[in-house]
């Protein structure tokens, strides 16, 4: 197990370095830069020469390779540099944005899993074919609803029309309800689909009639025997939906005017704020790698057959 963890950690480090380097190179290749975008503001009335002077003050005229090395070393020390757009340290901006997004994404993910489990189990338990069909159609519907549209629709109906939750003002919890729902729906869809399919597959296996013949109830079989076996593929997919959580939070945070990593990303992209974009890429990679590592480690816990394989 220790060797396995070591190996996976090594892989993860490599992935992180590759993501950092790719993002760094791509961001350098973009036309223009944040200094030009910021200081070309006509109200400031700066000449191209003055802008060039400002730029020299910012990057100190280091060679590309040296600049890369400095940035990489900075990241290793946890120093992500300064946002060109606002002049604040990137770490500060991330620290401000992270808790809001973590709450939103965490709650959205939990709700998504809950929705997925309810749909999959209800479909697996149901014997009426039309109810089953209807339940299984729900994920396809969910996955095709654009997050943006869903957010607007929820606001219009539940806030503006029915007046149940305020979008402007309101408590912390009230401000979370609609965004979490918006984010959870598209994430729930793939998890529900995979879970429902694996429940079907496991239910078709020979051990199920055997357990039934021993007198177990349908609910007992579904919960104790089928669910454990069916959870593995769903877990993998759940780990992969993390990317969608980030993408979804960009849209959700914009629609609901919430602060967070999503809004920060959107603004950094608009202003081509390279240090912020780089930090966001690295942060997303870290979380992605950690989540997938956690999923891999959880596998043997859920499935005894996998324990010997990695030991």
């Amino acid at each position, binding site marked *: 197990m220790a060797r396995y963890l070591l190996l996976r950690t090594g892989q993860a480090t490599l992935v992180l370095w590759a993501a950092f380097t790719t993002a760094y190179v791509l961001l350098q290749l973009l*036309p*223009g830069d944040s200094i030009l*975008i910021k200081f070309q503001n006509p109200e*400031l*009335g700066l000449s191209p020469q003055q802008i060039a002077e400002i730029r020299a003050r910012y990057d100190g005229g280091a060679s590309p390779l040296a600049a890369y090395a400095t940035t990489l070393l900075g990241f290793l020390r946890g120093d992500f540099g300064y946002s060109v757009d606002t002049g604040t340290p990137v770490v500060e901006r991330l620290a401000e944005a992270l808790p809001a997004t973590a709450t939103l994404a965490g709650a959205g993910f939990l709700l998504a899993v809950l929705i997925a489990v309810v749909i999959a189990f209800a479909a697996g338990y149901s014997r009426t074919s039309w109810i089953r069909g209807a339940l299984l159609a729900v994920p396809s519907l969910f996955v095709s609803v654009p997050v943006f549209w869903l957010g*607007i629709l929820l606001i219009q109906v539940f806030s503006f*029309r029915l007046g149940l939750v305020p979008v402007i003002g309101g408590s912390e919890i009230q401000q979370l309800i609609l965004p979490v729902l918006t984010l959870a729906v598209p994430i729930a869809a793939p998890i529900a689909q995979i879970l429902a399919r694996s429940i079907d597959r496991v239910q078709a296996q020979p051990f199920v009639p055997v357990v039934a013949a021993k007198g177990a109830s349908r609910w007992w079989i579904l919960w104790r025997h089928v669910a454990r076996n069916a959870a593995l593929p769903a877990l993998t997919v759940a780990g992969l939906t993390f990317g969608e959580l980030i993408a979804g939070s960009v849209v959700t945070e*914009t629609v609901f*005017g919430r602060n967070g990593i999503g809004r920060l990303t959107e603004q950094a992209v608009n202003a081509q704020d390279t240090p912020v974009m780089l930090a966001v890429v690295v942060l997303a990679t870290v979380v992605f790698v950690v989540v997938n590592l956690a999923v891999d480690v959880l596998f043997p816990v859920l499935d005894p057959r996998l324990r010997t394989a990695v030991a």
Partner: protein
Amino acid sequence: MLAVAGLLGACGTGPAEGSSNGPAAADGKPVYGGTLTYLEHQPPTCLYLPAAGFYPNGGILNQITDKLTWQNPKTLEIEPWIAAKWEINEDATEYTFHLRDGVTFSDGTPLDAEAVAANFDVYGLGDEKLKLPVAEFVNNYERSEVVDRLTVKFHFTKPSPGFLQGTSVIGAGLVSKKTIALPYEEQCQLKNIIGSGPFTVKNQIVDKQVDLAVRKDYDWAPPSSPHQGRAYLDEIKIIVTPEDNVRVGALTSGQADFVRYVQAYDEETVKSAGFTLYAEPTRGVNNGLYLRPGNSFLKDRDVRKALQAGTDAKEVVETLFTPSYPVATSVLSHLAQGYVDLSKELAYDPGRANALLDKAGWTRGTDGVREKDGRKLQLGVFVSGPQPLSKQTLELIGQQWSEIGVKLEIRPADAGTQAVDIKDAEKTAVSHSMVGRADQDVIKSHFHSQNRDVILSDDKELDRLLEEESAEPDTAKRNAKVAEIQRYVIDQGYAIPLFEEPQVYGGAPYVHGVAFEAVARPWFYSVWKSARN
């Protein structure tokens, strides 16, 4: 989107008092207290005062800073504010301001001659070491002179008749000596801006919300304001709400009191729900297309004149906008100083456009696009982020131009590419822009090769005219110069004015006393809320 709009239309549950147009007059007796919830479209950027022209910045700074003078938005006259009176020498190279006594910044320091001098030294000269750039509204600044505690004198190298108005603009807000001595990056941050205005910053969640609290000891409103003393409101909550229909929906459902940037297609929703629409003019250079003579196709005046004649501004307004957006009749808004009506010169005439292009040697290719020497008549333009419905406007004009055989290549407003290509007349032949400021100098800001230079001008004659205008101390002569410049710009085909761009706000019927500065930034000093019904 259509379904959403339908829903919106159906959910006018707000207090319906019948629609009213224009600012709600102070009907009934004003009451003190209450919080105004104001929804902004975008978060503020850098709050260094000379960069305050950006509306989200101005919306905050206008509440927390005062200016030396007050420009009456109706008459455009300059009236006393922090400066009780002033003298200007004959050729407008020396300005002496006598300040009102007893004014303090919110950090307790006095707003005296020294503080004013420190402010304008930075606005006029910039500061290399602190990375503070010069402000657009100050020309030919030489130095300040503190005559006594409440008297400050400014010296100019050349006549600067625009300076008096310059002291009233949003960017000329006065800040404490502590603020003005900070480096640029620090002055960008709201928490460091200490002003003398009727409100102070109470709390800020960066990019999301700014809470302003009333300054109870405020007692130096412009003398011409009917309301004096502290502001009526206790608090203003400025909340960034980027989504258009969330802003409008929040207003009409009673969750917000005031919103900025009501899109043209949402105006009817606001009005029909019984809410007030404020379409405030910006009194400057009109929203339009500006043609760059440095482009190898556009260096031919005939081509520029053809594009001017082949653009139907009226169709643009009638298709995409509302009566809040008056069709342009000159380069300048009809409310600008020195405006002259040139609507005859700007009449839509595709026949003449085609004739001009034929004459210039451009012949139609098989695809309908004109060609000359194997090159297609194709012009690039960027979608302009700050302009309302810029993409749709450009698409419609692209259709109009295709009828005269010109292809308009519309590119999305990706900030990086735009920053690189916007100064390249070959790649960006046309600029879609406008600028608001209620002074004759606005036209110089827009066209002079040392200012915004939207047409990347190589026209010495134009620069000369603009410099003459900005150095002319006599108002009548200056207005005549502005008229001459408008004629020249239209005659040379540098501009295709489209409409007079307003700032459109929506307000609840129980919000009274909303005022705006001359370029449509809200001033909440005399706002009060009556009971909702």
